[in-house]
């Protein structure tokens, strides 16, 4: 029913995230761009497991009509990936905060003491 539309969204989000990471100058915006890539990845996995018209993936001995289910594994994977994403985003933002304290700026062009 939805066709390839979700994959298109995943692709667009992915590209947007990458462009953000490469071209943004602000550390906060870079952190946001990483989150966008993360979201795209999660959406991708969930979409892979979706079966049009499928029911929730719970087996009962009684059998509840539809034998068509969405795949449970991708959902489990995504849950884990979301938790990991939360940890990395939080850490990244706190790094950005501490960097601001030391350098007085969030601009990547100013945060460049390590080079060569």
């Amino acid at each position, binding site marked *: 029913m939805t066709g390839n539309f979700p994959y298109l969204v995943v692709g667009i989000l992915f590209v947007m995230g990458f462009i953000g990471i490469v071209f943004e100058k602000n550390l906060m915006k870079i952190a946001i761009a990483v989150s966008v890539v993360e979201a795209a990845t999660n959406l991708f996995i969930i979409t892979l497991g979706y079966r049009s018209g499928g029911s929730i993936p719970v087996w009962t001995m009684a059998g509840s009509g539809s034998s068509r289910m969405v795949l449970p594994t991708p959902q489990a994977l995504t849950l884990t990936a979301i938790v*990991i994403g939360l940890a990395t985003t939080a850490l*990244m933002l706190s*790094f950005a905060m501490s960097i601001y304290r030391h350098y007085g700026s969030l601009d990547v062009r100013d945060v460049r003491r390590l080079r060569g």
Partner: protein
Amino acid sequence: MSWQVHLPALLLAVPLLGAFLAPLTALGGKGLRNTWFVLVSAAFTVIAFLLWTRVGSTGTAIYVMGGQGWNLALPSGMSIPVRILMEVDAFSAFMVLLSAVAALAGALFSIAFMDRFSGLEKFVALYFLMVTGMFGMEITGDFFNFFVFLEISSVASFGLVAFWRDRGEALEAAFKYMLVSTLGALMVLVAVAFLYSKYNVVNMATLGKVIEWGMVEKTALVLFLTALAMKCGAVPMHMWMPDAYAEAPAGVTCALIAVSQASLYGLFRVTYTIFGAFMGSPVIPWVIIVLGVLSMFIGVSMAVIQKEVGRLIAYHSVSQVGYMLLGFGVGLLALSDARAMAEYGFTALKGGIYHIVNYTMYKGLLFLSAGALYYATGCRNLNDMGGLGRKMPKTMVLFMIAAAAIAGLPPFNGFVSKLYLYESTFAVHPILAVFAMVTSVLTLASFVKIFQTAFLGPALKKFENVREVPGTMLIGMSVLGVAILALSLFPTWSVNHLVEPAAKALVDQASYVGAVFAASLTGGGL
């Protein structure tokens, strides 16, 4: 059923327990915390050693978490490979052993090195988490867990790189490292998803059995290759490596090296075991070879011009990773051709694997001695140092051992692995061997530079009060020093017992796949 079947699980459980109990031990004071730090590190090293001997004697170890077999049989009779699986073959066991030794040395060194800082219970906790992630990457039998362990070790190491957060540079390095790592991990996840979309499994052995060669697989392979090459510091994305390695506390860097080797392990698990002989075209092997040559050359030429000890040694890591990529790339090139494999492929692979263990040992020791210099003098810049050989003779001797080994001077272990690489890469194209040799010469040059400026020369007045570093730091360094000497003095033994089984396991895709299926047929791996 002996208790030894549980070794793979214990290998993860022990450092994990160590991590979560570390903050509690801090309540008992400094002594208890340090005892815990050493005790857990020693415990996982012993477990790693036992696991290695067990895999050596009884073959690939399969461990299914929380179940007998790795299949779940449904009432309908359909069986689904769902359970979480640990698979330890000779290559994994080899990686686990050397990572454990590096982590033990880093832990011993850190006790005195970090003594003047606060918040050490968090340090210990993060250190053990990083070690757990590293072991997990090396023994897991399924791709999603590989991603999870990759993230565990990465997130813990971000915290450790930024441990000295009063230094802006440490935070900057950690942010850079984090950006590269997180992106890499997400790419791994997307690659796993691609493979899942076609085969509905994330189990490595099952994938290795059913995989075909199509567009989906190509995409996944390229994503894996890019992500893991980024994580192990190959050239186009190497810039995080010198920053993170030089800014992290020295004991952490020693373990970080082992973590980056775990990514390298992942790269070769994917290319050899999953894709293996299916990779008919030589494109991917050549990409790996070219990445290797570029890393070698660019890494070393950046290293020669550095003035800061840590950064100089860190740039050498880039060039040393290049050697391994070169060896594995040549091995991969020869994989589908039995004659080429016998002629030069297997030698290249042996060289690459031997270089992994050598690199982890001597590079760890180099970073620890750089840390010792920093601990004793408080300076990082080579231009400020001089005449320290008189004050720190033991550190000097250990540094000399490591420097001779990395430069590949004949009696040392670095020479043996490099010789394998020269021999085999020459058979593919002479220019590869030429690059490898030039890199080796430049490596020697830059270590002569450190040795000469830091240790030799007249004693400087400002270093009058410098003394040799404390005993525990020397013990940590000696662990690696002794390992280097042992590998150097018994090259035949180490090639026959350490390197060859690992190389054979890596080439033999069928046995990795077969071990899992044999285990599930006999009703479980326990």
